[in-house]
């Protein structure tokens, strides 16, 4: 598992790590039983704060994706299945409705994109601070 950090992404570092683990799980690059790199290994490569790594692993542990085995390390517990197609379809419909509303209000594509991006960031940020 190779982590990387993008300082310009606007996302807190620990969330980037969480995302990368989830992404790897989704793609099957990480399987249950695999060991995640130790905090020491991660910071030795990325030169980030060790607490950031601990926080990311705690978040993943809270989501039930990984588990800490004392004395051994952090291991993947379960994999992430993709979202069900049913929920995908429903979300798509809602999105289409919202888009129609936005267009009716007079927003053009750029406005919509800006609004959407700000909302995503805010949601992610609020999640992090909580």
């Amino acid at each position: 598992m190779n982590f990387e950090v993008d300082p310009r992404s606007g996302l807190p570092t620990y969330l980037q790590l969480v995302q990368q683990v989830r992404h790897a799980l989704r793609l099957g690059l990480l399987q249950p039983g695999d060991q995640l790199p130790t905090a020491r290994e991660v910071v030795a490569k990325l030169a980030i704060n060790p607490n950031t790594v601990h926080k990311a692993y705690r978040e993943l542990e809270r989501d039930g994706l990984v588990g800490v085995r004392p004395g051994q390390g952090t291991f993947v517990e379960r994999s992430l299945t993709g979202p069900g197609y049913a929920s995908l379809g429903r979300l798509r419909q809602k999105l289409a409705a919202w888009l129609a509303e936005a267009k009716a209000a007079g927003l053009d594509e750029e406005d919509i994109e800006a609004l959407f991006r700000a909302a995503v960031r805010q949601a992610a940020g609020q999640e992090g601070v909580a």
Partner: protein
Amino acid sequence: MSTAVVQTRRLGRRYGARWALRDCSLCLPAGGVIGLVGPNGAGKTTLLRLAVGALRPSAGVITVLGRAVTGRPASLAAVGFVAQDKPLYPGFTVAEMLRFGARLNPRWDDALARDRLAGLGIPLGQRAGRLSGGQRAQMALALALGKRPQLLLLDEPAASLDPLARRQFFQTLMEAAATGQMTVLLSSHLLDDLDRSCDYLVLLSASRVQLAGPTEELIAAHRALAGPADRVPAIEVQHTIVSAEANGRLARLLVRLGRRPIHDPAWTVREVTLEELVLAYMSHPGTSQPTQPNLEAVQ
């Protein structure tokens, strides 16, 4: 919250008529990496030297690891220090520098220091005066880490290093911090390094503390606003404005949040980056955070 590693109460240091550090009250938590940021001459070096006992306070009190700072072996043993110019004895070889460490520190881990240097490819027979800038920094760090300190102080460690050496230095430093037994307190005016590596920030400006707190909390407590200039007074009533600029009708503010969130939809609100936060405070030296509540009670 873990125990405090450094506590100061109205700490000050004077040189003649000039106060290098003034009215500094801090409570720094153990176990993480604390960043000390501020412009040159703001008092960062003074604070670090007060913490290690190289200076005595002119006013106020400082305790480190629960003990008064005395300059005696008992309080020196637990604190490591890497000065800004990474001093070494130029005529000594690397091996002799390690011997220096071993002789002057009863709690010295020679194997650890040697492994570290070997891993970095620094030859033991090389004269300390002939090491490259990056190697000197690593040598100075290895010396400080070899005594297994509980608190490691670094004064502008990345200042004179090229980008590669700087990256390698921080990799080594963070790895050492990851062992968990040590708190790191480093000063810098390079915000990128602090952003990556620090989880607690102290901003010193004009010899006073402007900001102190966990970086996450500091960022969460501030917002960057963009909106109509005529709505600024309304914001001002509820929140503290740290910096503001106006361009015609558009105003950009950096505020410290009050009790209520910002509801006014006229304002675009986003989170601040650490760089924006630090720059905003540094350019307005009059603003500062309210005094930390746990110290007020003691007064």
